[in-house]
């Protein structure tokens, strides 16, 4: 499993895509797209992170147990963000008390 040898060509391709995405996200930041600025920046960041995890960190070729830990960590991060924001962002809705 962990003995899988990835060809350097793949690493160079991923590197090129990561650099292009960096240029893209910086470029987008100079245009006013309203709330879409944050969305674009985060979508690009998540795409870049996924490439690093899959190829540089070999998860694509790794055992299923590794997948479970990776997905688990993102899932728990989701719980942290969702529950915290669902609290803070709705506090102003309070009508009494």
């Amino acid at each position, binding site marked *: *499993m962990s*003995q899988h040898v990835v060809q*350097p060509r793949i690493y160079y391709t991923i590197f090129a895509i*990561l650099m292009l995405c*960096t240029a893209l996200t910086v470029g*987008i*930041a100079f245009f006013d797209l309203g709330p879409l600025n944050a969305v674009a920046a985060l979508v690009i960041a998540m795409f870049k992170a996924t490439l*690093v995890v899959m190829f540089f960190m070999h998860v694509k070729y790794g055992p299923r147990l590794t997948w479970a830990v990776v997905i688990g960590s993102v899932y728990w991060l989701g719980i942290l963000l969702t529950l*915290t*924001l669902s609290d803070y962002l709705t506090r102003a809705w309070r009508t009494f008390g």
Partner: protein
Amino acid sequence: MTETAHSALAHQFDSLGQQTDAGSLGMWVFLATEVLFFGGLFTTYTVYRVFYSAGFSAASHELDIVLGTINTAVLITSSLTMALAVHAAQLGRRRHLLTLLVLTMALGTVFLGIKGLEYSHKFAEHHVPGPTFQFEKEYFRHAQIFFSLYFIMTGLHAIHMIIGIGVLLVMWVLAWRGKFTAEYFAPIEISGLYWHFVDIVWIFLFPLLYLIGRHA
């Protein structure tokens, strides 16, 4: 099964392959705790950004987007050299491995140098939260929250970089002594996982701190 006699094989494992899988799984579990460690800070940032978006946008403008972009490129390049180092280790190419580890550490050091330069600019501009903080009156308090988060998040990231360079230094010495072979290179792979994780943290820090709210 064929590799049972390898000197690096600990007695509780059946094979080097199993040992490597167990080792990287352990690293991934540690990285999961790191995701939530940084996740707490990202959540804090998100809450304050939603509350004080105008102040955060104004403060974000004061960061140097050119240095930030250069540093992002430096760190991504260091991830490439790290991935290539693991590849060299897998093939048992000791010379390549040593060179690529040096390159990775050098790029990490360049990153820290540029970060230090940015920090010194912040001190000179009185953008460090505290009694000497200066900012336009309207956003004085909210900008301090932004810069507090900026220093805590990039500072913790920099500490991770320093630890990463230290780990790679140990790996370099071990590789120099010929400890790794095409059969046994798990420590290089696992150190690589840490290095790439630190890169991923920066992949999120960069847009959140430097880019969002830039245009306004």
